[in-house]
């Protein structure tokens, strides 16, 4: 019997679903309409006990929705403890919390959030870029502090048109950023592991060369061993004193200590940052700089992303239970 602390619907006809993620009410309700939800966070139990109870329930779950970010790792031990699992749906794009090799070995199919977040992240990157170049947030503070009548015009920004924007990572997000910036007259360059077919932007096999020919560097890549501190001291130096960094990837894509040093010393011109190495801690030196724009990891925080994620997750689960291919498969590839 499933633990009484697990939140479950009464009907035994609904397929069981393992849930290891906190959900907003509409998402939770949508899942409960369709599945018998075994909710880890609601159960309050330690994970091993929760998984054991799920595995020994009359209808052990064949599918799971599992959050990323280090809360739980789906490895051999996890899969052994709930052998009924045949499908894992992640709610982010990253799947580094899943041992994909182990899933593949067992024939467990895996889906992620696909491109659900890409548009909002791309829009936020463009918003940050315009803000930094045109000083929108800084000028806003100037107006709110009643300085406009006192000091006259706010110091001039710099034009977007003709700026060379180097995008690190031309995946879903990077491509959407490129398409948007072209409409502003920016010249797009990029770096990624391999050049992309059917893309007319100039490719740079290494990030330092990309930086030396760019006015703006946009970090739009995933975080992994190769991309940790991809923006390092050398790259910042290559970018130069008129250069700008926009980071909508992960804080650890950028050497934050070196970035702050470069900003303090005027060796780069500014930055727009949505992510930091130690969130929610933001280094104090950044908080008083006028040439940076700082946002609290909000690139995906729109109601549309929330509902798109809900639709994508449910769509993947329904496809699995209907014996159809997943909508946004990671495995099989």
């Amino acid at each position, binding site marked *: 019997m499933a633990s009484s602390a697990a939140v479950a619907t009464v009907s035994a006809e609904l397929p069981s679903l393992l849930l290891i993620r906190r959900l907003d009410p509409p998402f939770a309700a949508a899942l409960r309409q369709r599945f018998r939800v075994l909710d880890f966070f609601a159960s309050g139990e330690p994970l091993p006990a929760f998984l054991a109870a799920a595995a020994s329930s009359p209808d052990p779950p064949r599918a799971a929705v599992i959050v990323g970010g280090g809360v739980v790792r789906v490895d051999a031990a996890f899969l052994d403890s709930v052998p009924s699992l045949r499908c894992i749906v992640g709610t982010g794009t990253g799947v580094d919390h899943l041992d994909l090799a182990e899933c593949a070995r067992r024939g467990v199919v895996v889906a992620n959030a696909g491109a659900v977040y890409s548009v909002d992240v791309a829009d936020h990157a463009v918003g940050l870029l*315009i803000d930094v170049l045109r000083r929108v947030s800084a000028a806003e503070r100037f107006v709110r502090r009643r300085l406009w009548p006192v000091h006259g*015009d706010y110091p001039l920004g710099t034009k977007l048109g003709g700026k060379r924007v180097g995008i690190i990572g031309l995946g879903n997000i990077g491509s959407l950023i490129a398409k948007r910036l072209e409409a502003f007259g920016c010249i797009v360059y990029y770096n990624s592991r391999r050049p992309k077919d059917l893309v007319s932007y100039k490719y740079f096999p290494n990030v330092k060369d990309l930086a030396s020919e760019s006015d703006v560097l946009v970090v739009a890549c995933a975080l992994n061993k190769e991309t940790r501190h991809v923006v390092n001291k050398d790259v910042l130096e290559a970018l130069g004193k008129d250069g700008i960094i926009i980071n909508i990837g992960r804080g650890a894509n950028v050497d934050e200590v070196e970035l702050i040093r470069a900003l303090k010393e005027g060796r780069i011109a500014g930055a727009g940052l949505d992510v930091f190495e130690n969130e929610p801690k933001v280094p104090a030196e950044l908080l008083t700089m006028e040439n940076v724009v700082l946002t609290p990891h*909000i690139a995906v925080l729109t109601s549309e992303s929330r509902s798109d994620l809900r639709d994508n997750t449910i769509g993947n689960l329904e496809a699995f239970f209907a014996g159809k291919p997943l909508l946004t498969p990671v495995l099989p590839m």
Partner: protein
Amino acid sequence: MESLGVLLLHPMDAYLEQELARRCRLLRFCWDAPPDRRDAFLRAHAGSVRAVVTGGVAGAGAALIDALPRLEIVACFSVGFDRVDLARCRERGVRVTNTPGVLTDDVADLAVGLAIAVLRRIPQADGYVRAGQWKAKGDFTLTTRFSGKRVGIIGLGRIGLAIARRVEAFGCPVSYYQRTKRDYPNYTFFPTVVELAATSDVLVVACSLNEQSRRIVSREVIDALGPGGVLVNIGRGGHVDEPELVAALAEGRLGGAGLDVFEDEPEVPEALVALDNVVLAPHMGSGTRETRRAMADVVLGNLEAHVSGKPLLTPVV
């Protein structure tokens, strides 16, 4: 043009001022002085001023034009000339020039930047971080997606078209209002601003200010735009019924606004500063080093053309 007496109405750009000083006989107006001192100044220099260089907000009214009997040309360091008394200039045979084209991209960029800033609450989020709230209170609020929002543009001129092309890259359907319908396959025409507002999520003011467009964003238009709607004004403060706008924003009858211009710059209503569903900018649509330089060159180019009897580069009158 070394003999051209130029009256610079107020400081507006260091490069422009430096070039005027170098190439003409520059007089700097005592803009901040009390009225009697300003009048005395004009009387003293009336004989030598043949050109006035002014900004968009200062303009050149009838009183100034009348005080300068030798005035031949008013060169605006702006694309807007709503505060220049064109009728008086025509009567007197005074030429008027502005700076169209060179600032189109910057103004369009800021319009889109303001729209994203309002919808995604970027300045508010930045303030949240600077005030330590991320650590103290946790996640910021949910906002709404910019891409795909229906954008309505009042005035599909140079700037309006530049805005349309940018928002199209975000998948935003574009509609517009202007006096005459044109043949744009991708843009939907509406014969009234109210209808445009009713079908828009973001309404952008991009037309010039004149008698027909004064307060074109009325209470009726604001109500049609509604609690989910956002107004972006990169035109003139005079395009909008400002008290109505402020009330609508404060009461939630309008969702938000991104404003680069105000009725009484540089004064901004206290009630607007108190709101957090607005983004306020200090009239910086053309505010980049590159564009101000290009604008200055247009002003100088117009003055040069005038003194050498060549066609003006960008005449209004």
